[in-house]
C-alpha cells in the first residue's frame, strides 16, 4: 500500500481520526485490484445475486451511506468468499486470465482462450457457469460461440 503524504510524515502513518463507530461489525475489505475482479465478476454475480440485488434495492431507497451498511457488509463478505474459493482451487487459470485482461485493456472479448480454461476449471471445481444475464436464449452466449469456418 502506498499513500500520498509528505516526506517527513508519510501517508502510511495517517490514521483516520474519525473511524466508524465500534458498534458496527467488522468486515474485511477486498484486496483485489480491477483485473482480477473483472475476471471473477460473472461468478461473483451469479453466486452473490441475492445480496447484490438487496443492496441495489436498498440504495434505490436512499443514497445516504448509513442506510445500506448491513447490505453492503453482506455483499463484501460474499464477494470475499467467492474470490477465496476461486483462488484456492483454480489459481493458475485465474491468474492467466486476469493477466491477459490486464494486457488487453481489460476487454473480455480479447482473452477468450484463457477464459475457456478458467471457466472449465471453475465448473469442474464448483459447478458454476458463466451466464450473461439478459442475453438472448435462442443462440449460444458470446463466450461460447464457435467460429463458422471450422
Amino acid at each position, binding site marked *: 500500500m502506498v499513500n*500520498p503524504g509528505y516526506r517527513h510524515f508519510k501517508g502510511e502513518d495517517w*490514521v483516520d481520526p474519525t473511524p466508524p463507530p465500534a458498534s458496527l461489525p467488522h468486515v474485511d*475489505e477486498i484486496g483485489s485490484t480491477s483485473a482480477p475482479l473483472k475476471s471473477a465478476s460473472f461468478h461473483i454475480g451469479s453466486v452473490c445475486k441475492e445480496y447484490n440485488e438487496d443492496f441495489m434495492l436498498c440504495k434505490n431507497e436512499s443514497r445516504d451511506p448509513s442506510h445500506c451498511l448491513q447490505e453492503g457488509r453482506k455483499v463484501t463478505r460474499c464477494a470475499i468468499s467467492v474470490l477465496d474459493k476461486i483462488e484456492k482451487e483454480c489459481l493458475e487459470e485465474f491468474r492467466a486470465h486476469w493477466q491477459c485482461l490486464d494486457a488487453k485493456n*481489460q476487454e473480455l472479448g480479447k482473452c477468450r482462450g484463457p477464459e475457456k480454461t478458467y471457466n472449465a476449471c471453475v465448473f469442474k471445481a464448483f459447478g458454476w457457469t458463466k451466464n450473461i444475464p439478459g442475453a438472448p436464449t435462442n443462440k449460444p452466449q458470446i463466450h461460447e460461440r464457435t467460429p463458422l469456418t471450422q
Partner: protein
Amino acid sequence: MPVPFESFVPFGVMTAMFLATATGIRFAQTKRNEGKAVRYSLDDWERKMMARDHQLTGTMRGQVDDVIAPPQFKVNSSWKVYESLRNDFA
C-alpha cells in the same frame, strides 16, 4: 546517368525524424504504464477503479489478487484529506 544520391539525404533525415518521434512516444508510454499497453476508452468507472488500484498497489497499472486488503486500507485517512489526490486520474 548516375543516381543523384545527394537528393536522398533529406528524405533520410525526414524518415529518421519520424522514427525518433515514434521511439520517443513509445518509450514515454511504456515507462508510464510499466511495460503494459496504454489503456484507452476509459470511462468514469474505469478511472475510479484505477484510482483504487493506485491506493492498493502504488501505481495506476499495478494489479494484485489478494482476497483481503491490508488493514491499513480501511483506516488510512490520507485519501480523505485532499480531493485532488483522490481524483488523480493521470
